[in-house]
């Protein structure tokens, strides 16, 4: 069924509902005569008005005309300008019947003729009460009315019963009307035939009042609650065959609850349907051309959400049209097609609904927003400076902020975006904005599927339990006391959690909720005692960890509103009753985050770099022992995989050990052969750490694997200094040597690596690399590696230093190799500066990272980073350097140093 058909179907169902009572109401009005009940007239008026409005919207002109004429009379009645008499009501009843007939055969309604009815109604309105012409249409009307009217026989009978009043003196307009009414029978008969089908068609669904559904919903909620209580009791006292019954009840309750929820679900398309028109009209008004592309109309969300999201979405679409999409001239000037594109998408994502409004317009300029925010006193100049670009763009959600350069009547009176955000937040949703200057803006709204029953995790702080909606929960992290030192830290005053290479701000729920710190509380950072439970939550782009005392079960909770005395609590979004009958408050994660001034992790990271207080860089390493008392580590980044082989699979051919592997042979290395190490154990089975270099796969024998973990990169590069060893660190009280797999391979097979070196000299200098890296360990390693390969290197400790080196003009660089995470100026900023500068824009930039996160890569591409390489993956890095330096070097062809 097409969307239009669906709308039409809905219109039919709805109109029939409006008309179902209309006869009785007309008759009641008639009976009251002079003492007409204005409220009743009003009710009917609104019903007819709704039909008129919807019909007009759907282009059902005849229905619209007829409803309009009827509405007109009702309007006069409610204003007491017209006293209902039998004659008048008669005309109205006939008109209503005809209206039903038209709606019953909606597809052909536009071909029908209603002029007789309209004329009769208009005549009444004009003061010529009732009429002969109304009876004139009689002949036509019943012909089509009969089939639908069958069930309403008694009413019709009554209507005709009151009819016998003699017709009034024919009016002057009458002849006209009669002429017009001479046509209808044919059309009416025609439509009567086709009408049977739709009548049965509508039976597949019935309309139920929302009040009833709400009640069902509440009852289901109570049932869920009772079920939860029962399950707890049954869980506590097993036996007696109760479990089976309880389990069945559990299942049925869940299904019932789901089905009832389903009754409240509506397609979001009912909201989207209005936008093509809005975009069209606005386009005309603003002299802009814009195509609206809608996806995901079929996505279903709770009725309350569908109802409430309309206005915010309309506002956002208007905004995009007004501020986002440029005029055709401006677009052509910017090298875009004159017609703008507006994408409206809805889709499910992780149990939520995501709606995006994306335009390909001018984007939002963070610089302008900053200036404006400062000039309006929204933020201070200092705050403006501290702000990341993303935060600056988010200023559009700030109260009292309009993003239009000039105020228009379409949008942008400085109210709006903050209201949009507030309204969406009320629905438990979030809104965020992404924008690229010149390329467009994407507004992202995330909404829950339903508001009434939400799966939540129950947590405890002190003696109080709280519910955290599952939609907000990204993961649970448990930090054991012995890991505190590694995983928890402080950035300025804020506690943070190290999670896969990034720093997550922590919120201690007890403190956030204003509870006294527990008597035995120890700071997470220097604490001992129990493991710390951290719930990683997210709201929009914000992500942070919530520290709680205890985790309980996940429960489906029924949201109950809080009383008026507690409305101010921005950390709470409601309450629920737990299985044991106690009340638990529901935490509002967005509110909690903004209360604690948590910024998104991206922002946080950017800030850390700016302030130069970044956490220690971490490197993921694989730990193993060769000999019982000798621990080693290798960087995980360069490990292709780990294999387990039997010792008897290892053959020795001409002094080289090989293992048969996937129809080929793989050379293997033993540590004691290449570095100072005790001979490894020779158990029946060993692990092979497989890596790739010089186009070959090589296996390093590791008799015992211990662990994989993230360690800080402040390695000791002195104590165990020898070729093949990068440095050492202490892990679990053991000195552990970090070995360089590539170097090991080179030591074992120097012949494999010769091809890589530069061709023999001619004059001129080798390529000059600008290396920016804050970790001295990595800087030395990488620089050493480059120098070894014949490049010249200038080393800088951070992006700023590198930028100054560039700007000084002292050297003529061929290539920039930069770390991402650095203080003062990070790799992204450095790259952005380089690419935006006229002098240096041509320089290729290779970014080094210890973890190639896709978000970083994306960000990197945006600022113009040419290539990403993993720090410890020597071969690839050298290859990339070789390619870029060779490709670029204009004056300085890659050449070998004389002594290389």
């Amino acid at each position: 069924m097409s969307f239009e058909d669906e709308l039409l179907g809905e219109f039919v169902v709805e109109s029939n509902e409006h008309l179902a009572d209309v006869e009785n109401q007309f008759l009641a009005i008639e009976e009251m005569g002079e003492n007409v009940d204005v409220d009743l007239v009003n009710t009917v008026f609104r019903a007819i008005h709704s039909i008129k409005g919807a019909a007009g919207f759907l282009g059902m002109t005849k229905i619209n005309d007829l409803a309009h004429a009827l509405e007109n009379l009702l309007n006069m009645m409610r204003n007491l300008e017209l006293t209902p008499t039998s004659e008048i009501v008669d005309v109205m009843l006939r008109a209503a019947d005809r209206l039903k007939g038209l709606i019953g055969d909606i597809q052909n309604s536009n071909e029908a003729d209603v002029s007789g009815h309209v004329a009769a109604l208009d005549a009444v309105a004009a003061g010529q009460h009732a009429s002969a012409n109304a009876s004139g249409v009689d002949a036509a009307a019943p012909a089509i009315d009969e089939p639908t009217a069958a069930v309403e026989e008694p009413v019709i009978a009554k209507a005709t019963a009151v009819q016998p009043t003699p017709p009034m003196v024919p009016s002057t307009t009458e002849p006209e009307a009669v002429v017009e009414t001479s046509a209808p029978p044919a059309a009416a008969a025609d439509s009567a035939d086709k009408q049977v089908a739709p009548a049965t068609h509508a039976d597949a669904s019935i309309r139920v009042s929302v009040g009833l559904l709400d009640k069902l919903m509440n009852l289901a909620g109570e049932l869920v609650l009772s079920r939860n209580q029962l399950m707890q009791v049954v869980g506590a006292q097993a036996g007696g065959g109760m479990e089976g019954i309880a389990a069945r009840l559990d299942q049925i309750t869940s299904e019932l609850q789901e089905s009832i929820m389903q009754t409240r679900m509506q397609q979001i398309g009912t909201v989207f349907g209005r936008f093509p028109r809005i975009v069209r009209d606005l386009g005309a008004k603003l002299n802009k051309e814009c195509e609206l592309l809608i996806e995901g109309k079929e996505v279903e969300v709770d009725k309350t959400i569908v109802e409430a999201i309309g206005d915010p979405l309309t506002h956002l679409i208007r905004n995009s049209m007004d501020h986002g999409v440029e005029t055709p001239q401006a677009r052509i000037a910017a090298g875009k097609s004159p017609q703008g594109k507006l994408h409206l998408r809805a889709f499910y994502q992780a149990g939520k609904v995501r709606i995006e409004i994306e335009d390909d317009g001018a984007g939002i300029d963070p610089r302008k927003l900053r200036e404006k925010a400062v000039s309006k006193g929204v933020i201070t100049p200092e705050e403006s400076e501290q702000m990341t670009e993303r935060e600056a763009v988010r200023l559009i959600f700030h109260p009292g902020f309009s993003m239009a350069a000039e105020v228009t009547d379409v949008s942008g009176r400085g109210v709006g975006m903050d209201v949009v955000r507030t309204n969406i937040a009320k629905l438990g949703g979030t809104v965020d904005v992404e924008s690229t200057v010149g390329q467009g803006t994407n507004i992202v709204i995330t909404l829950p599927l339903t508001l009434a029953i939400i799966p939540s995790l129950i947590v405890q702080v002190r003696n109080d339990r709280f519910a955290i909606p599952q939609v907000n929960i990204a993961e649970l992290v448990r930090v054991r006391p012995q890991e505190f030192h590694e995983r928890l830290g402080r950035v300025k005053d804020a506690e943070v959690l190290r999670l896969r290479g990034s720093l997550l701000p922590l919120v201690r729920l007890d403190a956030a909720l204003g509870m006294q710190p527990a008597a035995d509380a120890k700071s997470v950072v220097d604490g001992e005692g129990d493991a710390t439970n951290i719930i990683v939550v997210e709201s929009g782009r914000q992500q942070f960890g919530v520290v709680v005392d205890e985790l309980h079960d996940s429960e489906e909770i029924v949201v109950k509103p809080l009383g008026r005395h507690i409305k101010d609590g921005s950390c709470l979004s409601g309450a629920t009753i737990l299985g044991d009958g106690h009340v638990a408050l529901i935490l509002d994660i967005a509110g909690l985050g903004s209360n604690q001034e948590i910024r998104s992790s991206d922002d946080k990271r950017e800030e850390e770099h700016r302030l130069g207080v970044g956490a220690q860089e971490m490197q993921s390493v694989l730990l193993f022992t060769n000999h019982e008392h000798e621990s080693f580590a290798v960087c995980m980044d360069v490990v292709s995989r780990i294999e387990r082989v039997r010792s008897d699979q290892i053959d020795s051919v001409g002094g080289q050990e090989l293992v048969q592997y996937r129809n080929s042979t793989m050379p293997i290395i033993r540590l004691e052969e290449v570095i100072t190490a005790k001979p490894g154990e020779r158990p029946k089975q060993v692990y092979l750490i497989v890596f790739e270099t010089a186009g070959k796969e090589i296996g390093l024998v590791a008799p015992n694997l211990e662990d994989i973990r993230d360690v800080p990169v402040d390695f000791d590069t002195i104590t165990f200094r020898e070729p093949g060893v990068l440095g050492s660190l202490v892990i679990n009280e053991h000195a552990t040597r970090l070995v360089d797999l590539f170097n090991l391979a080179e030591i074992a097979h120097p012949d494999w690596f010769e091809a890589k070196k530069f061709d023999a000299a001619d004059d001129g200098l080798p390529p000059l690399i600008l290396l920016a890296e804050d970790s001295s360990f990595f800087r030395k390693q990488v620089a050493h590696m480059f120098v070894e390969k014949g490049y010249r290197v200038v080393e800088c400790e951070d992006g700023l230093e590198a930028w100054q080196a560039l700007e000084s003009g002292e050297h003529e660089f061929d290539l920039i190799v930069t770390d991402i995470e650095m203080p003062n100026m990070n790799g992204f900023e450095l790259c952005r500066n380089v690419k935006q500068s006229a002098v240096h824009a041509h320089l290729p930039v290779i970014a080094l990272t210890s973890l190639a996160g896709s978000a970083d890569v994306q960000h990197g591409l945006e600022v113009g980073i040419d290539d990403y390489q993993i720090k410890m993956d020597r071969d690839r890095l050298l290859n990339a350097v070789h390619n870029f330096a060779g490709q670029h070097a204009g004056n300085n062809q890659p050449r070998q140093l004389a002594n290389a």
Partner: protein
Amino acid sequence: MATKVAPTNHERPAGEVQFATFYVGDILLGIDIRHVQEINRQLEVTRVPHARDEVRGVINLRGEVATVIDLRKVLGLPSADVTRESRNLIVNYDGEAIGLLVDRISDILTINAEQIDPPPANVRGIDGRLLTGVHTLASSIVVLLDIEEALGAASYAE
């Protein structure tokens, strides 16, 4: 557990009004019985972070979450511990069931409207604006609480 108090004022002779009376500290207070929904001793509340002082917490009132207000705080009296005699007086305030924590329930008082005197500016430390009047008994006075004022003052309604 819950003592239902029926709103029976409709059947009273004209001019007669009933008050549920109770003690907060040693002050005898009365509330128009038509406001009173029930009295219970569900004193274990769930505390609400960041709520204002008067809010003692929330309770599960047969499936709904009701706020419990500490009447002592509203009246500006020093707080006291919950005792065996403490009760929640559940009142219906503008459609919402709200619990009032009181120290002890007393009687139902049936009096004539004429027997109510206008409140003085201050009765034993209680702001007269929170009162609808006072009624003098043989040995003491009953301070009649204006529920709208008392709860309105504590609410954040704007």
